[in-house]
């Protein structure tokens, strides 16, 4: 049985505007890694917010999301809060703006943990934060736990975000463009870290990105999205070696290769 299963999920702003996510469905097995790829405006980020029940004001959601046999879309806000950050954790794109500048990273990691474990004291939570930071390989975690986000580099901040996600031992981590704001060498480190975390904790991963090469390295299965629809779903190998849909083929043709100059990069007719 799959850990997460999304059916006919639709997100729209207002009743007359066309939906930004239009009746999509996919599933993630326990411990699996699903990549959702698409260009800007494909609805990939809205999909993750819809799963978490964190849509911006004015957006409405229909369809069902099942998580571990529970229908998330039918949960009360209070029940949903017990899932958020506890059984499903999120990692966002820009780690600097995603961390509160007024609190130490330790406080922010501990906050996630304490809000889901009753009766955890300040000191115990701090210890959890230090351990989480050690697990994401932040050196001198015992000292850096009291530092503020601005005192970390971009890659280290993203490690803090991942530590925060890890602290509650979630079954699913949704990472929305987790490496887009990072330099390529740092990106490689963060992708390695995510793989290590999955190996160690058995957590499933949904990786949302525009970068096809990143998806090809991380995911077992891929969902290709465009204009709020799922264009194609398949195993990563199938999507990259034998794409069935014209859009997927065109998208792959457009990717610039590092090991090859292509006479003319194929471009999609969407721009003009």
């Amino acid at each position, binding site marked *: 049985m799959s850990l997460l299963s999304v059916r006919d999920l639709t997100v729209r702003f207002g009743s007359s505007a066309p939906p930004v996510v239009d009746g999509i469905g996919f599933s993630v097995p326990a411990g699996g890694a699903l990549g959702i790829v698409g*260009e*800007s405006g494909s609805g990939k980020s809205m999909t993750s917010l819809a799963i978490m029940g964190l849509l911006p004001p004015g957006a409405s959601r229909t369809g069902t999301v099942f998580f571990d046999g529970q229908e998330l879309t039918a949960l009360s806000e209070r029940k949903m809060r017990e899932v958020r950050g506890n059984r499903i954790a999120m990692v966002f794109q820009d780690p600097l703006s995603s961390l509160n500048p007024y609190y130490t990273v330790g406080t922010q990691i501990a906050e996630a943990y304490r809000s889901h474990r009753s009766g955890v004291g300040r000191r115990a939570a701090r210890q959890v934060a230090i351990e989480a930071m050690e697990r994401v390989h932040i050196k001198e975690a015992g000292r850096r736990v009291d530092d503020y986000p601005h005192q970390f580099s*971009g890659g280290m901040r993203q490690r803090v975000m991942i530590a925060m996600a890890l602290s509650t031992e979630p079954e699913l981590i949704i990472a929305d463009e987790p490496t887009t704001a990072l*330099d*390529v*060498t*740092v*990106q*490689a480190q963060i*992708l390695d870290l995510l793989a290590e975390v999955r190996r160690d904790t058995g957590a499933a991963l949904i990786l949302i990105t*525009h*970068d*096809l*090469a*990143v998806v*090809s*390295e991380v995911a077992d299965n891929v969902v290709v999205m465009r204009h709020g629809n799922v264009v194609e779903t398949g195993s990563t*190998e199938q999507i*990259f*070696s*034998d*794409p069935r849909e014209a859009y997927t*083929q*065109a*998208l*792959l*043709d*457009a*990717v*610039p*290769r*590092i*090991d*090859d*100059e*292509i006479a*003319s*990069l*194929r*471009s*999609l007719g*969407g*721009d*003009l």
Partner: protein
Amino acid sequence: MTLLEARNLVKEFAVAGTAGLFKPAAKFTAVDDVSFELHAGQTLALVGESGSGKSTTARLAARLLDVTSGTVLLDGQDVTRAEGDDLLRVRRTIQVVFQDPFSSLNPRHTVEQIVTAPLRYQKRPIPGGTRAVAQALLSRVGLNPDHVGRYPAQFSGGQAQRIGIARALAVGPRVLVCDEAVSALDVSVQAQIINLLRDLQREEGFGCLFIAHDLAVVRQIATSVAVMTAGRVVETGERDAVFGAPQHEYTRKLLAAVPRIRPEWEAARRRNAVAR
């Protein structure tokens, strides 16, 4: 003769908040002894990660920033401190395309005003009037010439970047500086703009200084590559040499970090595409 040459460029910035009442601020060296040569019809890519000084280097070469020390030569002439008419000549020869197309286009001007602005500012004759010139420029960058009366907000990101390129081309530059010009674009649009730049260069023969952090993009467009880190060029050479047999450890590390689609999947996909 070398079209554009940079010799030992150095740029220091004052570090904010370190200045005392009688003590000058601490210096941060953004560009540290950088030299390169750009020839007509060629594309030199400056690659590096954030903070490597690649954009600052480009801005120094384009005379958008003043050097702390070093020399910028245009057609063999020293233009490092060019002022007035001399600077105008530099501006006529070197044009820049920026990363974010929308923030570099005035939202209250029509496309016609935008793309002909460099001509008007440089008080150049406009043969056939601004409309005709603007229409010709739009067709050259693959936009509908009838859209000269539109405003930037009416275009998509890729189209806006084409407008930015049209504006740069207006004065017939011999050097085009592209500062992360395709970085903010979706992959399909990015491919279009790369193709456009390659085609335009073939037709016009301008030299292109291409600033990018994306090595795969650089691979598509560059003839030679300079790899920068911490304000210095650590490796420079022909594109295929740098990508195929990187000499410096940093270059190797950078190349190794780039995510790749498995070559066997790529090969299979090509076979399948042919079979279809």
